[in-house]
């Protein structure tokens, strides 16, 4: 089955993808967007500064809602990152050839998403300068972290995820950086690309080692797709809060992560392929495949919602039932409706092939999904905490400008990093697409 359109050879593949960097189109647009996101990053720095200087009180968190937008955003960003790893690792092992058109881009997205996510656990600490106490280092207090706490598992999970994703991404980039080095037009370009290309010659020995390492990392990364977000979900499932304490959470969260991750990939890849004329590589069939993933994970997530509701009812416990009903009847009910619309309702259109290949529909639905998944994290974190066991302790959470500011700042940081990525690094995997082009031309 041919995934790449047009008659491509490794030469044309390299030329096209390298051309995005060497003869960049839409330069002014790029600068404008970079400027905007740079402003956003500045705003991020200001938000962080205000937070560190004055304290957690600048956010809207209170008693009982001790976790607010910071944790919502943390989970949202980590979830988004999962698509990259799934595409890179699991689809590789499952020999899904359509992954080659998006894997580099998705891996970069993962990395940047995890960077954004990693800010939040640090910043939401009351005393962030002691963050290192979560690490097991030998100290003069004879103290170790509390291994029973899901936050410690988080610490290891996210740091492992970051490390493995970075390695995997870099390893895949090495041959492409060599291509860039060889095609570089200026001395400094050649030197920098050359440095990071680690002396890649493209010999068969290099390729043999590379492929084995790549496969090894894919095997390492595969369990991470499931484990990282399962561990993040255990932050909630291990607690006894009604609305959190549910065994469906690990698979539910993983499905949700893949869901939101793919949605983000679709949202970003559609303008990308348009602006950089990469339609040959990211074809309608690729979009179709991604839409099918979205549909599948949407159904899984909807199953998760049903499960939560059923378990609450089946338990017969007043606190569980009350919290579940409060989602529909409480102050946060409109947010819950947005959630259902974005996550359960909108993706159903992908049952129709026409919808799956329609760029506009894809764009709109993927944005709705991202919003829906954000509201899902909001409902899980905030609504459950606001409506717990003792009615005397029920209270609402209202995000403040610094809550939103930090979130907007991370969106800007993400954009900033993505913009730098598309400008300076090959957005698609030159080596893998070249290989695929050769294989398909033989069919």
């Amino acid at each position: 089955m041919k995934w790449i359109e047009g008659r491509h050879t490794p030469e044309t593949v390299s030329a096209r993808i390298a051309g995005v960097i060497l003869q960049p189109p839409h330069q002014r647009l790029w600068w404008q967007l970079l400027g905007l996101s740079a402003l956003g990053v500045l705003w991020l720095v200001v938000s962080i500064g205000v937070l560190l200087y004055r304290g957690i009180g600048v956010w809207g968190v209170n008693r009982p809602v001790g976790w607010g937008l910071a944790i919502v955003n943390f989970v949202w960003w980590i979830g988004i990152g999962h698509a990259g790893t799934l595409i890179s690792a699991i689809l590789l092992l499952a020999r899904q050839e359509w992954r080659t058109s998006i894997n580099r881009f998705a891996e970069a997205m993962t990395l940047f998403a995890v960077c954004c996510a990693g800010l939040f656990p640090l910043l939401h600490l009351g005393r962030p300068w002691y963050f290192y106490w979560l690490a097991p280092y030998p100290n003069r207090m004879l103290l170790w972290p509390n291994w029973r706490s899901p936050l410690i598992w988080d610490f290891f999970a996210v740091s492992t995820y970051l490390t493995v994703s970075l390695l995997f991404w870099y390893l895949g980039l090495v041959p492409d950086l060599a291509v860039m080095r060889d095609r570089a037009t200026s001395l400094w370009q050649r030197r920098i690309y050359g440095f990071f290309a680690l002396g890649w010659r493209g010999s068969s020995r290099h390729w043999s080692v590379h492929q084995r390492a790549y496969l090894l990392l894919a095997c390492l990364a595969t369990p991470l797709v499931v484990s990282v977000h399962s561990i993040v979900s255990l932050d909630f499932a291990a607690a006894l809060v009604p609305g959190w304490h549910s065994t469906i959470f690990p698979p539910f969260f993983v499905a949700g992560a893949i869901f939101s991750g793919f949605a983000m990939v679709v949202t970003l890849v559609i303008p990308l392929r348009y602006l950089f004329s990469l339609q040959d590589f990211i074809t309608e069939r690729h979009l179709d495949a991604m839409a099918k993933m979205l549909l599948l994970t949407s159904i899984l997530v909807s199953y998760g919602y049903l499960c939560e509701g059923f378990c609450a009812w089946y338990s017969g416990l007043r606190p569980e039932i009350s919290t579940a009903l409060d989602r529909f009847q409480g102050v946060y009910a409109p947010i819950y409706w947005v959630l259902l619309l974005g996550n359960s309702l909108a993706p159903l259109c992908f049952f129709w092939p026409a919808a799956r290949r329609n760029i506009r529909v894809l764009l709109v639905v993927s944005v709705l999904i991202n919003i829906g998944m954000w509201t899902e994290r909001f409902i899980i974190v905030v609504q459950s905490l606001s409506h717990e066991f003792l009615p005397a302790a029920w209270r609402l959470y209202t995000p403040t400008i610094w809550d939103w500011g930090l979130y907007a700042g991370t969106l800007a940081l993400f954009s900033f990093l993505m913009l730098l990525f598309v400008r300076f690094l090959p957005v698609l995997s030159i080596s893998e697409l070249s290989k695929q082009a050769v294989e398909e031309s033989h069919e």
Partner: protein
Amino acid sequence: MDQWLGVMVMTALLLLLVGLPALWIYAHSDYVQRSRLAPEQPIQFSHRHHVAEVGLDCRYCHSAVETGASAGMPSSSLCLTCHSQLYADNDLFEPLRRSYAEGQPIRWQRVYRLPDYVYFNHSIHVAKGFGCVECHGRVDQMALVQLNQPLTMEWCLDCHNDPGPHLRPQDKILDPGWEKVAHPELKEYYQIRKQGLTDCSVCHR
């Protein structure tokens, strides 16, 4: 590629094999622990002279050690019980005389200091068989008081986990020169608690 790999691996190994022990040694160094550092005091008070030579009991000046959390520092008037007569005109004692005349305390530089979040009680330690020199060292041999113990949590826990080796007979608590001999039966004698000495709230509340 091979070169790079080789270089990177060697560097990493070097960092780990040399760096980590270096870090450990530094953390336990005298510099960081400020051991044997005798800070300058407003009056060069010599414990060696007053305890070993004159023969003063610790409690003469540090009178609250058996009853209170803090052992107490002698007031200017206490010093003057002797030094209004002895060395009454000596220049070294000018700060003491001025303190009394002006009603301003002498500003001693603290040597044994625990952080504010540690609630240490002297009286229970003294009551349960810990000599002064156990923690403060051979003060009777110090010309100027210096810090000899790390005073880290690790060091405190060392004893709280197993007080036995650090106990001494009741009449030797204030005896700085007592030779350290193991007395395993003292744990029973002092009725040292078996449970709870390593609870956080014993020190941190």
